[in-house]
């Protein structure tokens, strides 16, 4: 199939937008931690841009999109071998799924997804990870967990794709996948010292709002870019993405207002993100007012979900489980009801559009498979690293803060006072 410059332009722009989401996420999270941990949080996200970029080019892409059968790719494309060739065709991307963009553009676009996915769980384990241990977990998880799951769901050669499970932009691959891993990590590393008794207010909500703004912006590349072209489907996905975020913001604020008496800015930002998460699997399969319904439900459900950590006593510090895991579940499951083939003929109809329960079942299989695989492997990885390198900072390092203890830096030095001396 011919390369289309318009489609390519949109996917290149989308790749840039998705890359920008990782700094966005970093600030969304960093604003919520205490000032002594702001750099630790930023670093845990930025390092993903470094480490995973390299791993993706070396092996990740090949394991995710190589021609290795239904369950995992292979090593044909290590170091991005061959994919730059003009006549190169990516396994499975033929007929209906034929690419109209350079495979290199597709590989770069997918790289940005690989980068941000594990960055998501840094919010759950905020303020207490040992940098070295985190780094090892990050790299291994990306290769052993992310690439296979991406293969299952995104590659036309993957078993979940072939089974008929739908995931337009990563409800399972990104959000459920990272969300369950986050829960596992939280259980393995344990609570922050002093949680929940001690007050741990966000140190800079403006940074969090900035991050949320960048996320909303970048998510257009994430979801609408997944149309892999500049067409009506991409336009629908972009519209759906924004409407879901809008409705989710309103939903979250409404419950918040009813329960707590106030509509908060943190709630507005959190609700928007919840809606963006939930619409991710649905973006290119639903239309009309469905995105608003899905978003609104996600806003309400995620707000209620984050209260569970207090009931069950797990310290999902910045609510990655409550927002990404639960939001991903909401979207992936609701898609079984709202999917509409008049929006996308390559999809299937959900229950509300005469499709019966088949799609819903396939969605549940995809969700279940991701939960089990990612949950189990993440647990093994976390336990092994905990027992060897160590996954958690020492108690006094935690008291001192990650910025000084892990990175020998401080986030802010506003004082006029020259209370430092140069020693080297």
């Amino acid at each position, binding site marked *: 199939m011919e390369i289309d410059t318009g489609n390519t332009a949109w996917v290149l722009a989308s790749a840039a937008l998705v890359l920008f989401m990782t700094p966005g996420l970093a600030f969304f999270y960093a604003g919520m931690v205490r000032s002594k941990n702001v750099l630790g949080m930023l670093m845990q996200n930025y390092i993903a841009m470094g480490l995973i970029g390299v791993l993706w080019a070396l092996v990740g892409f090949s394991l995710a999109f190589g021609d290795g059968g239904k369950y995992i790719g292979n090593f044909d494309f290590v170091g991005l071998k061959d994919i730059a060739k003009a006549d190169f065709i990516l396994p499975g991307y033929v007929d209906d799924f034929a690419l109209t963009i350079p495979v290199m553009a597709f590989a770069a676009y997918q790289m940005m997804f690989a980068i941000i996915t594990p960055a998501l769980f840094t919010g759950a384990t905020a303020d207490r990870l040992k940098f070295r241990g985190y780094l090892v977990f990050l790299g291994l998880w990306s290769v052993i967990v992310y690439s296979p799951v991406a293969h299952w769901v995104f590659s036309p050669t993957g078993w979940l794709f072939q089974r008929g499970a739908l995931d337009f932009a990563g409800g399972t691959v990104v959000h459920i996948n990272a969300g369950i891993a986050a829960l596992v990590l939280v259980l393995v590393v344990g609570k922050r010292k002093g949680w929940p008794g001690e007050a741990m*207010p966000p140190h800079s909500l403006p940074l969090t709002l900035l991050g949320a703004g960048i996320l909303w912006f970048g998510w257009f590349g994430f979801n609408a870019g997944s149309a892999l072209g500049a067409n009506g489907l991409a336009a629908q996905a972009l519209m759906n993405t924004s409407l879901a975020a809008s409705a989710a913001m309103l939903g979250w604020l409404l419950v*918040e207002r009813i329960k*707590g008496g106030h509509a*908060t800015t*943190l709630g507005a930002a*959190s609700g928007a993100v919840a809606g963006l998460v939930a619409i991710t699997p649905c973006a290119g399969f639903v239309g009309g007012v469905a995105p608003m319904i899905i978003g609104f439900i996600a806003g309400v459900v995620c707000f209620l979900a984050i209260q569970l950590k207090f009931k069950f006593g797990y310290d999902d510090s910045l609510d990655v489980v409550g927002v990404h895991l639960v939001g991903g579940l909401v979207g992936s499951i609701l898609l079984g009801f709202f999917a509409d083939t008049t929006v996308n003929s390559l999809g299937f109809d959900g229950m509300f559009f005469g499709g019966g329960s088949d799609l819903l079942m396939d969605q549940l299989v995809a969700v279940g498979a991701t939960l089990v695989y990612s949950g189990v492997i993440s647990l093994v990885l976390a336990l092994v690293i905990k027992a060897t390198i160590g996954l958690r900072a020492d108690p006094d390092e935690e008291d001192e803060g990650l910025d000084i203890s892990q990175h020998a830096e401080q986030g802010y030095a506003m004082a006029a006072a020259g209370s430092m001396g140069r020693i080297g």
Partner: protein
Amino acid sequence: MKLITAIIKPFKLDDVKSALKDLGVAGMTVAEVQGFGRQRGHTEVYRGAEYQVDFVPKVRLEILAEDGDVERLVDAITAAARTEKIGDGKVWWTPVEGVVRIRTGEKGQDAI
């Protein structure tokens, strides 16, 4: 020599400063502080977790003054800082045994 210390509401600083200037006070030192007292603080909510904040922002003034000036200055501060709402703050004074102006080494009342 005495040291007058006053805890006032931040937005009253300007009034107090002018009042003292009018009485010929040449200098003072000010710090941002947090006050706890009868004046109640506020509550904050983050993702449903509710916090009580007991401290309210205040400004702390220090004025070195000659013994004879203390009463006038204290009265001036009290008058200028008063809003008659809870939380107006306190003024107190303590003895100072010596003062030096760093620039000149002048001592005692010449130092201020």
